[in-house]
């Protein structure tokens, strides 16, 4: 027989079933029993909660399983933990968790034992597992990275820092990401004992208009890019008269460099779905879709599993908890195209078509199959759930006048602590890049910060005091977008960065609008010429002019924002463009045609590998003696540079 869980009835006195639900079901799972008095039932629930928190035997080992930790080898660590527990006969629970956002520490594990502080070990290799377990269980915590919360202040003598005391944690406000890396993403019980579904519990007794009013009070703005007030979208959809309305969660997350949606949905999928149910209730939607892209299969798996679980317990489906409100969700795997993140293209994709369409009419009045449709981002709905769980004040005490609350940012590129950080809106970029993400490794200098992805722009290092909020970033020539922050150091060429984004949007242009389809190709060709040393000074004017044409005449925001990376690099890094054009030099030594490959005779050992790799046979030299490249014949394919085991091939 399956194990008894908090989601099950405690005894025959409980009459709750999915068909005839008790409306106190959610609270009862944790605080119950509520309808009858029974010490036995109460103890049963308490014991189960203890068990979930500390494990059946008082020892718990958590291994995070999410895309990022898996890429760093978490599966092997999980197997090593299982093997060690089995072979040593240890009585311990092994559970999975999601990602806490500190990806540079992956894979990590968390150990807890009654009587000892919970400790986090990082960059764990499978071979380290036996030693870590042995040490921890014997009370030696010296090799731990950090300890979890210490409410009683008794952990001081362990000489291991508290997670809360590290700048990378203390500068964060873990509001929407509170469950990430803490909860088991595949356990509905874990979510429910952590205040889960209390938002849903609250709203089912509220009038939909009051639900919208509540969201209005929070000031929550969409986290998908444009920052549109969530309540306003809901109110428009709510006021439409229609036989059916739809609620879609946009989990397409196509912006390369942003992964907070993946992280949230993989680590705390129930929160996303709770927020979605609340939204659907507010607008009167009866059918929901979660649109996930194919490149993020684990995110789709976790969301699908969570939907199934929630449905199984009657929190989705017909007549949810006897409220008369019915809603169901389908998870759709997108076959992948960046433009599908745009709402009308997303709707087309669900309908089995391609390409965006004209707005207005906006989806809130005429969306999926011409019915009123709300589309919200993953982080937006997860915020909704959390705001209803903990109250508006907890949210509005952070943020700026115009943008309340917190936002997750993914900081990648040239920083030592790559990861996802949740901070109050309005924090300065430099705090995000230096205090949280640790700045560039090995003393390099930040040249620019690219924010907002392919529709965003580059903020130069002298403007890093810009606060991250919608308006300030816009005036600096970037956008908040979904919150992807890519830090660029001196080793990157800004013209190459612009070319990279242009090639991305060019490939992703759906082709419907002439100016975007052809204009992006022209922009790309000009940039390509410049990076190959074939540019002229008029090109810079042309780039600007053409950009404005594309921005002004494209149907959807893909074309409407695609030239932004070019415009912002031209604005702040014009001298780099000029160096390519006038001096035929790439100052960062990135653009292949403008660098010379040279073999440093002091480093070359004459192994001959470069000779084999060179497709043109213009590297010569005797075996065992320094080789040399004929610069007039070199085609700059960089194969020698890649191949040389000594690092003797130098770009100059």
């Amino acid at each position: 027989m399956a194990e008894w869980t908090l989601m099950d009835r405690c005894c025959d006195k409980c009459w709750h079933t999915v068909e005839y639900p008790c409306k106190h079901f959610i609270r009862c799972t944790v605080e119950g029993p509520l309808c009858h008095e029974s010490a036995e039932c109460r103890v049963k629930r308490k014991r189960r909660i203890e068990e979930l928190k500390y494990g059946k035997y008082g020892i718990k080992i958590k291994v995070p399983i999410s895309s990022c930790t898996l890429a760093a080898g978490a599966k092997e660590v999980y197997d090593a933990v299982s093997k060690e527990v089995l072979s040593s006969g240890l009585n311990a629970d092994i559970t999975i968790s999601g990602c806490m956002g500190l990806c540079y520490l992956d894979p990590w594990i968390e150990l807890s034992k009654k009587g000892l502080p919970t400790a986090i070990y990082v960059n764990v290799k499978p071979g380290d597992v036996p030693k870590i377990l042995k040490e921890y269980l014997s009370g030696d915590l010296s090799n731990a990275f950090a300890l979890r919360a210490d409410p009683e202040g008794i952990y001081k003598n362990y000489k291991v820092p508290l997670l809360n005391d590290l700048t990378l944690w203390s500068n964060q406000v873990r509001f929407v990401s509170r469950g990430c890396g803490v909860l088991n993403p595949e356990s509905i019980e874990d979510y429910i004992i952590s205040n889960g579904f209390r938002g849903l519990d609250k709203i089912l007794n509220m009038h939909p208009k009051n639900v919208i009013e509540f969201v209005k009070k929070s000031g929550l703005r969409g986290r998908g890019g444009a920052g549109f007030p969530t309540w306003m979208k809901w109110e428009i959809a709510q006021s439409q008269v229609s036989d059916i309305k739809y609620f879609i969660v946009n989990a397409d997350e196509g912006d390369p460099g942003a992964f907070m949606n993946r992280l949230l949905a993989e680590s705390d999928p129930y929160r996303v779905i709770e927020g979605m149910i609340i939204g659907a209730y507010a607008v009167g939607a009866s059918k929901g879709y979660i649109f996930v892209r194919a490149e993020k299969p684990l995110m789709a798996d976790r969301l699908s599993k969570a939907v199934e679980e929630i449905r199984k317990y009657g929190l989705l489906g017909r007549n949810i908890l006897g409220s008369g409100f019915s809603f169901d969700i389908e998870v759709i795997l997108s076959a992948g195209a960046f433009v599908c993140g745009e709402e009308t293209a997303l709707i087309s994709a669900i309908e089995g078509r391609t390409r965006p369409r004209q707005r207005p009419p906006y989806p809130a009045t005429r969306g999926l199959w011409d019915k009123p449709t709300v589309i919200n981002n993953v982080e937006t709905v997860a915020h909704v759930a959390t705001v209803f769980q903990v109250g508006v004040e907890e949210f509005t005490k952070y943020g700026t006048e115009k943008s309340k609350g917190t936002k997750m940012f993914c900081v990648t590129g040239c920083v030592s602590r790559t990861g996802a950080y949740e901070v109050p809106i309005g924090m300065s970029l430099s705090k995000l890049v230096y205090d949280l993400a640790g700045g560039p490794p090995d003393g390099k200098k930040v040249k620019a910060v690219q924010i907002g992805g392919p529709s965003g722009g580059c903020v130069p290092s002298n403007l890093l005091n810009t606060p991250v909020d919608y308006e300030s970033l816009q005036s600096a020539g970037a956008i908040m977008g979904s919150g992807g922050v890519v830090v660029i150091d001196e080793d990157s060429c800004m013209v190459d960065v612009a070319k990279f984004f242009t090639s991305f949007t060019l490939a992703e242009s759906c082709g419907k609008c002439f100016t975007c389809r052809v204009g992006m190709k022209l922009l790309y060709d000009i940039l390509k010429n410049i990076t190959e040393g074939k540019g002229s000074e008029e090109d810079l004017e042309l780039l600007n002019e053409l950009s404005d044409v594309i921005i002004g005449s494209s149907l959807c925001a893909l074309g409407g924002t695609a030239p932004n990376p070019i415009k912002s690099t031209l604005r702040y890094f014009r001298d780099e463009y000029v160096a390519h054009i006038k001096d035929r030099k790439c100052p960062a030594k990135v653009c292949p045609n403008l660098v010379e490959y040279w073999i440093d005779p002091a480093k070359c050992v004459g192994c001959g590998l470069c000779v084999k790799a060179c497709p043109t046979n213009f590297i010569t030299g005797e075996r065992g003696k320094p080789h040399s490249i004929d610069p007039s014949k070199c085609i700059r394919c960089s194969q020698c540079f890649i191949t040389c085991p000594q690092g003797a091939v130098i770009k100059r």
Partner: protein
Amino acid sequence: MDSVKERSVDEVVSTILGKYNQRHHLMRILQEVQSNYGYLPREALEKISQSTGIPLSDIINVATFYHQYRLEIPGYYIFLVCMGTACHLKGNQDNYNVLRNTLGIKKGNTSSDGLVSVEKARCFGCCSLAPVMMVVSRDGCERYLHGNVDIKETKKLALTYRSMASKKVRSGE
């Protein structure tokens, strides 16, 4: 994979259409066809068109618009090399070149022995561990993510997956 080969395209497509057959299911229908073959055989597209009445041109429009679909048979293992921003900055283009070189791919995406393919891919959301590549098996049953791969590691991965593929193919025969 091999048991599938024995089933005709007709049979495979009919099974899928038995589950979904509406216009708005097209994306999913094509995904299921691809998970059977690793690509979309022309025959299958024609069969879908005949059975559902969706014009073949529409089906091809969808099949070529989205990145996930392949119109040619790939190798047993497929390297998906992330070309996202973080991975671009950390040199995944070099890794991509190294993969192609190591596997001897000159034209197209697949090695001449048909064992391994190398494709460019969109961001996997593991940008913190850039550069990243994902390796999937053609039948969709296996999926491995590799983060922080340098050129040495890339070469090793190329050889490892090639020998895994050749073992699989040999044992399947």
